[in-house]
């Protein structure tokens, strides 16, 4: 399968997924128009106000028409007004998304460097002391909920050692120090997870016949790991990195709420608490879009790394 047709097929599936998701979201939030009116105008609005508002905004049109109109608006960048923030949704979502991307990017760096590194070290010699220490560490990081690691790490670095600030509001402009704890906590789970995947992959590769061949050619351990094992062992973990984005998006919500960081996660959270349904719809759509795109990227990376697989054969 060529790259073009592979991308084409993946994109088609992605579009189909997005369409389905958008329909479900619209169905869930806006099928009941009376509900929409209450949520937009507030509980203290009068029935007359609501009816007038619904009529004015075309809510008495058939459902399918309303959906298509909503979808059309979405695609063309007209995402409506936030009822809570009283501004166009696009003007608030994108800056927040950028702020979260910073957070997630930092976390991704931690994940890649430490996750892959620790995984390779542990998997080089299965059962060694180093392996066991790293394995226990990664079990611990993948077992503790985000909010609990935030509490623990803040306890240590903020209250006990007094090294870092306990919040990340960035009120007085960008601050790298404020970013450290949120990035660390956000990266912790996926880092442990990636280390486990990398270790398992490395252990498997180290047990293959071709590693034995390399040994019996007279290659030294460093050469075996670097030249023969690593490239094959990293195929799965590198693919998995992209699939961690959905996890990071979940984590972002908790971390941003905990550290009062003004990002996409806290935006979705505020929208949810305040029943700002248009904003929730938009945030949900954006989240799913990010996930779908990361899946395509992950497939591409897999095909690029693995000479055995012609693109698409796996899917």
């Amino acid at each position: 399968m060529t790259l073009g047709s592979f991308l084409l097929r993946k994109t088609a599936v992605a579009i189909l997924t997005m369409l389905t998701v958008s329909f479900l979201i619209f169905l869930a939030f806006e099928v009941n128009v009376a509900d929409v009116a209450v949520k937009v105008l507030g509980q203290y609005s009068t029935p007359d106000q609501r009816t007038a508002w619904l009529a004015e905004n075309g809510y008495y049109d058939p459902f399918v028409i309303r959906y298509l109109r909503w979808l059309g608006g979405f695609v063309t960048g007209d995402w409506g007004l936030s009822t809570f923030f009283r501004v166009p949704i696009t003007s608030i979502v994108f800056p927040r998304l950028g702020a979260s991307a910073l957070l997630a990017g930092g976390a991704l760096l931690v994940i890649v460097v430490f996750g892959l590194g620790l995984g390779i070290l542990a998997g080089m010699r299965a059962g060694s002391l180093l392996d066991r220490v790293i394995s226990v560490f990664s079990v611990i990081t993948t077992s503790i909920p985000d909010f609990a690691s935030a509490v623990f790490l803040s306890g240590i670095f903020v209250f006990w050692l007094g090294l870092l600030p306990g919040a990340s509001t960035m009120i007085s402009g960008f601050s790298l120090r404020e970013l450290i704890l949120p990035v660390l906590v956000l990266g912790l789970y996926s880092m442990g997870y990636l280390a486990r995947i990398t270790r398992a992959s490395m252990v498997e590769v180290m047990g293959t016949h071709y590693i034995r061949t390399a040994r019996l050619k007279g290659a030294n351990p460093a050469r075996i790991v670097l030249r023969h094992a690593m490239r094959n062992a990293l195929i799965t973990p590198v693919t998995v990195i992209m699939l961690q984005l959905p996890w990071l998006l979940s984590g972002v919500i908790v971390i941003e709420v905990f550290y009062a960081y003004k990002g996409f996660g806290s935006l979705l959270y505020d929208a949810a608490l305040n029943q700002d349904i248009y904003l929730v719809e938009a945030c949900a759509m954006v989240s799913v879009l990010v996930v779908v795109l990361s899946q395509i990227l992950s497939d591409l990376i897999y095909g690029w790394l693995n000479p055995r697989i012609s693109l698409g054969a796996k899917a």
Partner: protein
Amino acid sequence: MKILLPYLKKPLVVIGVALSGGWLLVAFLAPILAPYDPLETLQPLARPMATGADGQLFVLGTDMLGRDILSRLIWGARTVVIYSTLATLTAYAFGMLFGLIAGYMGGRIDAALSFAANVVLSFPVLVLYIVIIVLIGASPLNIVIAVTFSSAPAIFRIVRGITMDVASRDYVAAAITQGESTWRILLVDILPNTTGPLAVDFCLRLGYTAITIGTLGFLGLGLPPPTPDWGGMVNEGRAMAIAFPHLVIFPCIAISSLTLGLSLLADGLREVNEAKERQA
């Protein structure tokens, strides 16, 4: 006992069993173990090991409403054990049913079910919860529904994969050529041979569910107060955590130790499974 023996040889597994079994026991014996009523106002913001006016001892202190934290933790164990187990079991019921069908039947049924699962899985977990909770509100039942809805597709995928693998074995082919009915093949030849890897996943998922329920509690979207709930305790205590760290530290330790226990247990199960496979 003989079956359990290989599990108990590894210290980490023993720790896992002790932690998760310990919390299970605590949940079961909550009425006996808890020194006070978890909802009763005794004395606000007592420090750990402080003694109250009436001579009560608050081992882990009290919260701002004066409720004993140890008692709330103990009753909270019951909350988390009950709802995690219930939610995971329902998710498993749906996930396994559809996973077995999709994995064995293949073709269009599989394509349709897999697409549906992928649609749900394309939501980041917490986004999905928040959407569901915004729609249906936070209540014990709704939390179980939300967890089922978001976990079942992941379970579906795992069960489907394992089923496809088992279904390609010759003993399934043999059963087909004997004229065995599809349901019997699923129940006798496939289902029992999927349990090893699924037991591992079940433990892990129980942990995830506990984390999820805790996280929802932390975000204030979980079980409505005053139900004793670990995540909720962290949320309530967060504002005063600088002055009174015991408000948040102990619930965090509680939930972390439970989920760590479940992870270690899952690891132990996985190792034993792999050892069994190597032997065969």
